[in-house]
């Protein structure tokens, strides 16, 4: 890895000061292909996650496969993580371009200014997306913007700028990919310097870095990697073998959840049924193996036991409609969630009382929590107080 000559380090360097053959389109294009794939996977799975969290009548989501969201959101975080080494090496390989001279002529200068503008947008949005996504996956929010809405908006900006970038660079990309990686035709004019590392060696190191970044973190969602993922945000430990996202203390529900006065209220129009935890236990119990899969990318599968939501709704003769699931929480964005009608009638959708054979821990949502197939963790309402259907 090399840079400008010693004498120029203190000054602003020029493009020709960078002499390494490694900073070549041969490298940029090959890494760019994989970076583009990672961005596309993250974008598509991000759209899925967005639609899942904000149900829309135009995109009704299926209840099967029950592990669907676990896979798409796991892929979202994995592709974003793999993109970090790829993006860093990609930026390294094109860094001299930052110091390129402007061409002659107004028209050419204007064109270059526009192109550099799109590059600035692409780089800023890309760095923003991977950095904010990475911090979010570790539940670190050192910013003042609304993460979900902003990350969603900038996902479109990044992909839009990427499409423009690919369109502009297509001839360079085509040339780079049709020539051998070490072809001198792909040297920049000033870049004939050779050091220890070959382009092939640089690319292999980059693939290793991207792979290592994934393997060392993905254990939070891929059980096979649990022991290998030394940078996993969660080891997978927790009450009844499942980690927790938000504790009862953080949600401010400890007293209400443990109170003997707790009643589950099921309401359909004017009809209301109130059930104690004992009443719930006396109803027919169903068990289902379902994952809890969070937007932060971690997931874990458990055996949940409880009452079918459809059975509870039948107690008030609720018709086939969307259900409002309300928590004991007094505030918070996910205090209340909509359970679409086709999820409510699904036989795997439970109001769970037990997890993996043990009493539901308070941090898992005691006295009762919602668990439904193919649904993001934030919408699997804990400490459920009410199920309401508006006629």
């Amino acid at each position: 890895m090399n840079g400008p000559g010693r004498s120029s380090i203190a000054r602003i360097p020029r493009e020709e000061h960078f002499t390494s053959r490694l900073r070549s389109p041969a490298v940029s294009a090959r890494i760019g292909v994989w970076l583009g794939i990672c961005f596309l996977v993250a974008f598509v799975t991000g759209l899925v996650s967005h639609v899942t969290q904000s149900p829309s009548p135009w995109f009704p989501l299926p209840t099967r496969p029950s592990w669907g969201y676990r896979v798409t959101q796991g892929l979202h975080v994995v592709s974003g993580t793999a993109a970090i080494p790829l993006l860093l090496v990609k930026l390294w390989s094109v860094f001299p371009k930052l110091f390129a001279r402007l061409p002659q002529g107004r028209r050419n200068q204007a064109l270059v200014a526009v192109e550099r503008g799109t590059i600035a947008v692409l780089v800023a949005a890309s760095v923003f997306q991977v950095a904010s996504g990475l911090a979010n996956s570790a539940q670190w929010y050192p910013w003042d913007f609304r993460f979900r809405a902003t990350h969603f908006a900038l996902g479109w900006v990044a992909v839009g700028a990427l499409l423009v970038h690919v369109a502009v660079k297509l001839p360079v990309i085509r040339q780079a990919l049709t020539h051998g990686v070490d072809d001198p035709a792909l040297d920049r004019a000033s870049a004939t310097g050779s050091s220890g590392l070959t382009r092939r060696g640089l690319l292999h190191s980059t693939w290793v870095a991207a792979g290592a970044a994934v393997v060392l973190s993905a254990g939070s969602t891929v059980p096979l990697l649990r022991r290998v993922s030394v940078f996993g945000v969660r080891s997978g430990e927790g009450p009844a073998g499942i980690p927790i996202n938000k504790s009862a203390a953080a949600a401010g529900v400890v007293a209400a959840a443990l109170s003997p006065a707790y009643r589950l209220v099921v309401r359909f129009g004017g009809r209301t049924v109130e059930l104690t935890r004992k009443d719930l236990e006396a109803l027919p119990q169903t068990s289902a193996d379902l994952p809890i899969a969070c937007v932060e990318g971690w997931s874990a599968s458990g055996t949940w036991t409880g009452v079918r939501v459809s059975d509870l709704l039948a107690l008030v003769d609720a018709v086939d409609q969307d259900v409002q699931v309300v928590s004991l929480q007094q505030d918070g964005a996910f205090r209340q969630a909509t359970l679409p009608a086709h999820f409510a009638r699904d036989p795997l959708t439970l109001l769970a009382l037990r997890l993996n054979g043990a009493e539901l821990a308070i941090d898992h949502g005691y006295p009762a929590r919602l668990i439904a197939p193919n649904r993001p963790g934030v919408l699997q309402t804990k400490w459920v107080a009410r199920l309401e259907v508006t006629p």
Partner: protein
Amino acid sequence: MTGRAALASLGVVVGAYGAFRLLELGWANLTATLVWLAGGVIIHDAVLAPATIAVAALATAVLPPRLRAPAAGGLLVLGTVTLTAVPVLGRFGARNDNPTLLDRDYTAGWLLLVTLVLAAVGSWSVLRQLTGRSQTHTSRPANGVEED
């Protein structure tokens, strides 16, 4: 050319939709976002990129030529993977009420990564020496600039 123009147009539409969604979130959200957008570019261009050049210059100055390629590969892997681990190494999101979050010894994990990278760099350089590959690469002129 029409294919490229179509692709670029699609990109403009997609990007404009994102910009519209961003503006919709209000002025305060926009300024907070712009700080991070600009900050990311500045941290990369003014801190990370020069730091990489400085580390490369230092490594070139102190390492014998046969070690340069393996060291460059090793530093690349260690540096980029370490950056992906910054949030867990700092345990910035840790919460007292949730012991299931950030519940690993990340420093030990990082030291393990360093050990593995050092082992890989060591084996790579031994392998290069045995196969004599290092000669073919270090004999090329370096064009008067510190390399690798």
